Each structure stands twice: as C-alpha cells, then as structure tokens.
C-alpha cells in the first residue's frame, strides 16, 4: 500500500501544477498582450492629442487584420500539422489575378471568378501536400519550390495589375457595419470554422497528432499523408480567400499584392506569436488571431505616431523574438515540472 502512495502523491501534485499552467495558456497571454498594447498605443497616440481606437483606428486595425488573418488561419493548420507553407504570398497574388480576370467587370462572373480562384488555390495546396508526403521533400523546400514556380509564372505573364472587379463585388472589400468591415467579420467566421474544425472534428484532431509526433499518429492508425495533404489544401484555400478579398479591395488583381505585404513570413510570425509551436502539435486558431491583431495594432499605432519604418520593423522583430522566447521558457518550465526525478 505504501508503495502505491509513493507514486500517486507526487503525481497528483504534478497534475495540479499542470492545471495552473493551463490557466495561463499562451492564448491568454496573447490577448493580455493585445490589451496591453492597445492601452499603451492609446496613451502614446493620446499624447499627440489623437485617439487610436476611434472609428477610423478600429477600421484600420481590422482591415489590416483581414487578409493577414485569412492567410494566417491556413498557416496555423499546416504548422500545427508539423509542416509549413512559404508559397502563400505568391498564391495570394495569383488568386487575386484569377478572380479579377475571370470577373472581367461582369456581375455574372463573380461566382465563377471566386470558384476558379479557390479551385486553383486548392490545386496548389494539393501539389504542396503531395510533394511533401509522396516525394518526401521537406515542407520548407517543397513550398519554397512551389513559391518559385508561382513567381516565375507571375513575372512572365504580368507586369502590373490586371483584370477588373465589378463594383458589386467591391462591396465585399468596403462595406462595413459601424467601424467593423464586413470582410473582417467574414474572416472571423472563417477563423471560427477553422477553430471548430481543429478542435472538434477527427481530421482536426489528427492534425494535432501528426504535428505532435507523426510516428505515434501513424502507429495509432491515423492516415498521416491524407492529414498533411488536407492541411495544405485548406491552407492554400485560405490564402485564396485572402487573394479574392484583396482583389475586391483593389478593384483588380495584382501579382505582388501578397509578396509586397510579406504574407509568407508575416503569417508564420502571426502563428508563432499566437503561441503555436513551430514544430507543430500544439497551439491553435484563437492564438493566431490574437497574433494577427497584435501585428495589425502595432502597424496602426506606428502609422498614427508617424514612426520611421525601420524602427517599426525593429519593434516587430523584438516583439516576435520576445514572445517566442517567453513560450520557450514556459515549455522548459513545464517539462521540468513534468520531469520525474
């Protein structure tokens, strides 16, 4: 009997400690940081006699967050699965062009334009996924290769904006309810759907499992290839949505709209800032949206303060590195507590 107790007592203590850590989940930290940032930003902007979170400010933050948010939602899925997608930025540009050129100013072509753009996006995701799972190329190289192919295509065929988005479809980019753009609400709806998918459905569970340990997942009967391919298809479709949204805002397609905004690295930054492990298996959509909002708020605040762009990038870099270092510390602390002797 005493031997039994020897084992269970420390185990219970460990469990309680784990519970405490869970309450201070990275997602909570992200949103606390966002609130802190909004407060500090408001004060700094307030010192100049302006208001950060006025109608315009909120609109600004949410507009910035929309396209990046869509890309980052997809990126979250692939990163959770233990993969990565560097091709999203070019894909955003490509899909904006496909949508705008198919629509060619005609209202009747809106739906075909959207569907075609999404289908092409899904195809690119399928290629990414298959190159990674069947040819067993590392995700970094595989998606970099696909990114280069997309770039080649764009450079060869486009010199500038092309296509024409009908006025009716531009409402998607500009309509708003009070200070809240409709597109931002749609982005949040996509986020909610992705959150549900990841946390409530079997394929979502399997993404966490594959990212956590692909061999464990395989031995447990998870179809690992299918899981990775699915994640890539969904990621690319999310990038396609971003491309379509940007086409509606710009009124046309633009080949470098994705790369100019740096959506490839920016989306990875948002995901990691949101507390998802770059190695996969842990994290989620809620954190990512927090990360996206932090990046958008930083940009809006800096614009309001008219900060020099170089300084802006320095601060963003510092924020990102600090966040990751913070999570890494917590992970080590957790591991030390979970450790046996």
């Amino acid at each position, binding site marked *: 009997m*005493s*031997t*039994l107790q*020897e*084992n*269970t007592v*420390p*185990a*219970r203590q*460990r*469990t309680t*400690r*784990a519970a405490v850590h*869970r309450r201070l989940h990275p997602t909570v930290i992200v949103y606390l940081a966002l609130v802190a940032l909004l407060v500090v930003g408001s004060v700094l902007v307030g010192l100049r006699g302006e208001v950060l979170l006025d109608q315009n400010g909120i609109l600004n933050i949410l507009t910035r967050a929309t396209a990046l948010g869509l890309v980052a939602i997809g990126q979250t899925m692939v990163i959770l699965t233990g993969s990565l997608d560097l091709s999203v930025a070019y894909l955003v540009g490509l899909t904006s062009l496909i949508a705008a050129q198919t629509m060619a100013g005609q209202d009747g072509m809106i739906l075909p334009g959207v569907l075609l753009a999404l289908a092409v996006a899904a195809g690119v995701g399928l290629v990414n996924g298959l190159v990674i799972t069947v040819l067993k190329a590392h995700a970094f190289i595989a998606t970099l290769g696909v990114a280069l192919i997309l770039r080649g295509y764009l450079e060869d065929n486009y010199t500038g904006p092309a296509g024409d988005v009908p006025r009716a479809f531009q409402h998607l980019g500009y309509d708003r309810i009070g200070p809240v753009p409709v597109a931002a609400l749609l982005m949040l709806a996509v986020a909610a759907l992705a959150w549900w998918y990841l946390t*409530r*459905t*079997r394929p979502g*569970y*399997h993404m*966490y*499992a594959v990212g*956590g*340990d692909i*061999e*464990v*997942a*395989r*031995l*447990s*009967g*998870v179809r690992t290839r299918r899981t990775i391919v699915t994640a890539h298809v969904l990621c690319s479709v999310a990038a396609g949505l971003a491309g379509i949204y940007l086409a509606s805002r710009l009124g046309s397609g633009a080949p470098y709209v994705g790369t100019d905004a740096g959506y490839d690295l920016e989306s990875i930054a948002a995901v990691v800032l949101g507390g998802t492990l770059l190695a996969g*298996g*842990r994290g989620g959509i809620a954190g990512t949206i927090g990360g996206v909002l932090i990046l958008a708020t930083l940009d809006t605040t800096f614009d309001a303060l008219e900060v020099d762009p170089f300084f802006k990038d320095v601060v963003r870099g510092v924020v990102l590195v600090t966040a990751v270092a913070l999570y890494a510390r917590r992970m080590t602390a*957790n*591991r030390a507590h*979970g450790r*046996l*002797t």
Partner: protein
Amino acid sequence: MTTGTTTSVRLTGITKSFLGVPVLHGVDLELRGGEVHAVMGENGAGKSTLLKVLAGVHKPDSGSIEVDGGEVSFASPTDAQRAGIAIIHQEFTLLPHRSVAENVYLGREPVRRMQVDRRRMIADTRELLDWLGEEGIDPADPVSALSVAQRQVVEIVKALSTDARVLGMDEPTAALADHEVELLYDLVRRLRERGIAILYVSHRMREVFDLSDRITVLKDGQLVTCAPTSELTSEDLVRHMVGRDLGEYYPDRATPDDLGPVRLALRGAGNARVRDLNLEVRAGEIVGLAGLQGSGRSAVARAVFGVEPFTRGAMEVDGSARRVTRPRTAVRLGIALVTEDRKGDGLALRQSVRDNTLLVRRAALRGARSRVKSDLSALLDKVNVVARSEHQEVRFLSGGNQQKVVLAKWLAVEPTVLLIDEPTRGIDVGAKRAVHEMLRDLARRGVAVLMISSELPELIGMSDRILVMHDGAPAGELPAGASEGAVMALATGHGIGEVA
C-alpha cells in the same frame, strides 16, 4: 485453465528482410486466448520485428497470418486493430500535449453529429481507467502531467479501448520501477483471465517466469524453441538465447585492496529536489543508488553533473571543493553521466557511431586531452559495439549496442567519476552482462562509479555499497549483498525491522 481455449492467432513461416538483411526466417508463433506467450531473444533476434508484423506495421515478405482460423493480411496498423490485435510498443506512443482521452482514442475518435464526441471519449476512458483501478488519472489531463508509470497505464488503456483480443507488449516493464512492475503483473493476469491472448516480449527472466504460460525463443531471426514455461529453466533459456552458458551472473565485487582515494564526495548537498546528501565514492568502488521513482535518485546524478546544480552544501571532486553548475564543467573535471533516457539524452540518433563516440571528446576537451589517446576502433572494440560500420547511424542499432556507444562516448574522455542511470534498461541478457563487466572493469581501473538502478537484482549484484533514497533524502546505507527486502524497506520509508 491456460490451455484448451481456441487459438486466436497463428503466424506461420513468417519471413521478413530489411534492405536485403534478413531479420526473420520462417518463424511460427501461435497465440491462444487466455494465455501469456513470452517471446525472448537477444537484441536483433527479431522479437520486435515479429511483434510489428503482428501489429500490421511491417508486411511480411512471406508467410501467413491466421486469426481464428481465417487467413488475413494487414496493410496497416488499423487493419490489425480491426482484427482485434493491439500492440503496446517499446517506445511510448503518446502525444504529450494531448489529453489522456485524446491519446486513447487517437485515430478512432468517436463521432457524433460531425463532431468528435468528447464527452463519450472521456467517459469511456474513465471507465477503462476505473476498471484498472487507476482512478488517479484524469482523462482530461495532458499526458505530459503524468508519471512514466501512469503513461504506461494509458498505453494499456489505449490498447484495450480497441476491444483487443490479442495484446502484444514489447518490454512493458522497461520504464517501470520495481513496485510498479507488480501492478503491471496484476494487470496482465487480469487481462489473461478475461480470455485475452498476450504476446509478451521481455528481456527480464524473472518476469517471463512469473507471468508466462509458454515461451518462444528466437535467435538470429529463427525459432529456437517453443515450450511451456513449466518445462524450462532459466539456464535453458539463457542457453537458447545466447547459445552458450553465461554461468555466474555478476562480476566479482571490489576487495578492500581495490579501493583508492575518495573521488567524489558530497557534504550536506541539496537543491530543490534532494537534500542532506552525504556520500563518498572511492576509486575502484561501485556505489548503488536505490529508491523509488521520484525519490531523487536521478536528481542526485543530475545535480552532480551540473544539470540541476546543488544549491546547498559542498561537493568535492578528487579532494578539492568544486562548484559544478554546468555539464561542461563536470566533464572537464572527469565526471561522466550516462542518463536513463538513452535515446533522448544520450545519443544523437541520426548521427553515426563515430560522431556519437567522439561527441564529448570533441565538445568538451581542449589541447592535449582532446588528442586521441586510444583510437576510435580500439574504443569501439573495447565496448564491443556491433555495427555495420562506424558510419552507421546509431538509430539503426539495437538498444544494447546503443548503450555501448554511449559508454564509448564517455570512455573516450577517460572519466574518473562515472554516474550511470539505469545501465541496462531495455537491453538483452548478453549485452547486459557485457555492460556489467565493463562497469566493474572501469572500477578496477580506478574509476568511481555511482550506479542508479530500479532493477534490484542488478543493483544488489553489482554494488559494493547501496545508498537508498526516499523522498529526496538518503534513507540509509546498506552493505554489499543486502536483501531486496532491506532495500525496499528503506526505499518505501519503513524501518528495516518492519519488513522481514
């Protein structure tokens, strides 16, 4: 009671090669419901491969698998699961960041209205845990919050949750402390009473005799014998496995003449995990460090080595007071640590035998000491590593050979104090004996050895003295050849008088 039931699974003439290297030749194996069938053999004998064939992880090159008389072919672990076969693998197959219930039902999550039915998953997991008498584990807790023994329970629950009628266990006790092994025994017996066929792969002689009804011995991928346990003796088994008699199990202990100066001394040392440590280890001596899991055994070694340094008291190495706050300092003082987690902490699995062996020497020593005193092949010969070449990646070696590479890595820097945690965990009889002899040989050549082991026969057979830890502090010291009862009494916090 153990025979007469229907045959559950029959493997006939199983052959399997990897990259042209044959691992199994024409092996037959029969598993009956309500029977524990042990499979024994040295490293590389093909036990794990056989188990993986049964589990649908590997497809055999030839041979047939029959379940309840019908021939089957498994394309994946899922196929085997559907046929009622579940395997508990040697390495833990749990995701630390996911909850117990999510792990148990991984790949088979119940779905209700398009969603994973989390409530049912948790309820079913709890039911299984209750049935095993493990109410202490909460199905909603992440696995990272559980102890090693609890993780093993989760592994078993995971296997049971598939309604398995055939359960394969690969070295199930490798990660457990002695008192936890008893709990596992109970569990295995209960499973047998329920009519489940159990394939039990183990290196531990005692376990196999305690638990099994039949024993199959493999050597070099071939079936040597299959006989009822009652008709075999441990000498028979060892002979079948290694093809020779091993004779006396442990090397001779140190005589007073062998002992040299004190190499490592702790005086009232402690940190967050351990306290009040007073300990001297002399050159030529093997001191055993015993204790239950969580008693601070490994924490002592980690503290001496500077992983989680001592914060109180003093530590002396070769007579001078030293503060070791980093492993690098420890290495340069001549201290070596062979950790209990060979794959996690001991080896760079994807690097070659050569790179692993030279790892410490390259990393920590400079100048004259880093220059090769004995060349690499001599080192590898000394520890008798069996590898295709020194360029083979260590992940392809058997557990025993991996452990030998870890030892070679440290011998390359000629340590004077060797801390070794679970020296023979998960390695076979032949390699075990080789490791034991190596440790004694090192001691004879003036190394002070501090050996941690949860295997009591090993601890008692090897140690010149035994220090027993309980709850982070020393509970007492026992002389060479103390009884298992005496060690357990101290380890569980009883006075010696209470347990005969």
